[in-house]
């Protein structure tokens, strides 16, 4: 009955949705942000440890949400590990494009491997009401990395 939904709910997504990786509070994180999707009640807290050289040593999150938002956050924390802040921001932009359109034309240019790992989420573009579920984690990451923000918060709106 739901076979055509396997594009959206690929095994990777269901797996990360059920058992999100890096799902914990990161003690000593030097960047923290909260992400909220007020419409559906999804919420997450993202912890990032950025080295003095500006690399993401570690990222972790806690929260609640649908399979798409949990899987997206889980995959994100894996993908950004070891990246520079600039690379993470670039990934966030490319991911947004992938989630909204299903393709990312200039993904080959840089960070191609990382985008490959995020590819299973491309299916959301066919579900306009679900795109925000996939992008919430990345909005939250942007908020966490933003300079000078006192209280770091992102919403999916």
């Amino acid at each position: 009955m739901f076979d055509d939904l396997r594009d959206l709910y690929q095994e990777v997504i269901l797996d990360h949705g059920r058992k999100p990786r890096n799902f914990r509070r990161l003690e000593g994180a030097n960047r923290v942000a909260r992400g909220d999707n007020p419409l559906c009640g999804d919420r997450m807290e993202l912890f990032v440890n950025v080295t003095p050289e500006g690399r993401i040593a570690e990222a972790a999150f806690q929260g609640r949400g649908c399979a798409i938002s949990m899987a997206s956050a889980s995959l994100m924390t894996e993908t950004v590990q070891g990246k520079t802040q600039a690379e993470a921001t670039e990934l966030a932009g490319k991911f947004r494009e992938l989630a909204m359109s299903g393709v990312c034309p200039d993904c080959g240019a840089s960070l191609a491997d990382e985008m490959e790992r995020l590819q299973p989420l491309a299916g959301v573009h066919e579900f306009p009401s679900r795109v925000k579920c996939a992008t919430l984690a990345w909005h939250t990451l942007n908020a966490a990395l933003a300079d000078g923000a006192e209280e770091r918060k992102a919403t999916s709106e």
Partner: protein
Amino acid sequence: MDGHFAASDAGLDVARIREDFPILAQTVRGKPLVFLDSAASAQKPRQVVSAMVRCMETAYANVHRGPYYLSEQATDAYEAARAAVARFLGAGDAREVVFTRNATESINLVAHSYGRGVLRPGQAVLVSEMEHHANIVPWQMLRDERGVELRVCRVTEAGEIDLEDLSAKLADGKVGLVAVTHMSNVLGTVTPAERIAALAHEAGAKVLFDGSQAAVHRRVDVQAIGADFYVFTGHKLYGPTGIGVLWARAELLDRMPPFLGGGEMISSVTFERSEWAPAPAKFEAGTPPIVEAVGLRAAVDYVSAIGMPAAEAHERRLVDHAMRRLSDVEGLTVLGRAQDRGGVFSFALDNAHPHDLSTLLDRAGIAVRAGRHCAEPLHARFGLEGGTCRASFGLYTTVDEVDTLAEALAKAREFFN
């Protein structure tokens, strides 16, 4: 209207009713549409649509203004709608019916005009845990602005208003207004309005019922209930969007200052001062929802022609069937088990988030709502901060559709396993 709705032993002739709702005949994603989101907004029968079109094509002008034929026609239609709503609610006098934009505006009107005009700092407003945000936020605003206390009556595990807690919170005599729902948009619980009104009155409080759901599912008689204020919204009652109703006892409307200022609501204006028109005009500033009132009247006529007893019997059948079928779905939790419940079911699957579940159901052509249905505190009360899915029934809902839902839920659980 002709008698083709007459209930037989088998209940409503739902097939006939569905012919009045052309939107239901479509397929969605290759499956017949199963529309189970009437509690958010109901579909509109042809009778409503054509009444509105007829008004605009033949008898439309602004009301209460032009001394000419068309304006008189429109004014008559607008005031006839008011009278029809008064009869629908069992009100004694059509002047007690105020047209607003929706239920939300009706409650805000009371919070503004009764809350700020009549209630005093130190008095309290008592709501319940099962309110829609529309019956919470206006009172919070009043509290923050005027120092009126906001109290919250508990809801029991079964999803009913805890009447003992209600009495306890009324006991000190400080509550000036009890504002509670007549039917929960999440639990389907129909609240014991008469009993609540009696308790409120014994404690010297007035009582407002949010009838947004109840007016669709139950025969309402504001006088028999003993209500002081009763609100509902047109679009859930098979009427158009953009029109809501506030009914209030005349002496209360007389004591209340206006809500919005402008045309229609005054009897005289100079730059020094204005004098208010009597109710209901006092509360209807500006050009009112004329065509929408005509549509609402057609909706009220439609529902009345079917008859609430027949509609309730049909709904009872759906509710009983849904209770049985849903309790057979493994891993499914249905919120609330009130004695008196209407056709609204909120549920959660143990292995699927409501959002994922509704995406699956959508693929099966089934429209349900996912989230917290504008009742965040109630979901917190039941430990379901992540929300629920909600299926809600209307006159056109069939037993087969309930089966389709139950089958899809069982398959969805397999899908996520």
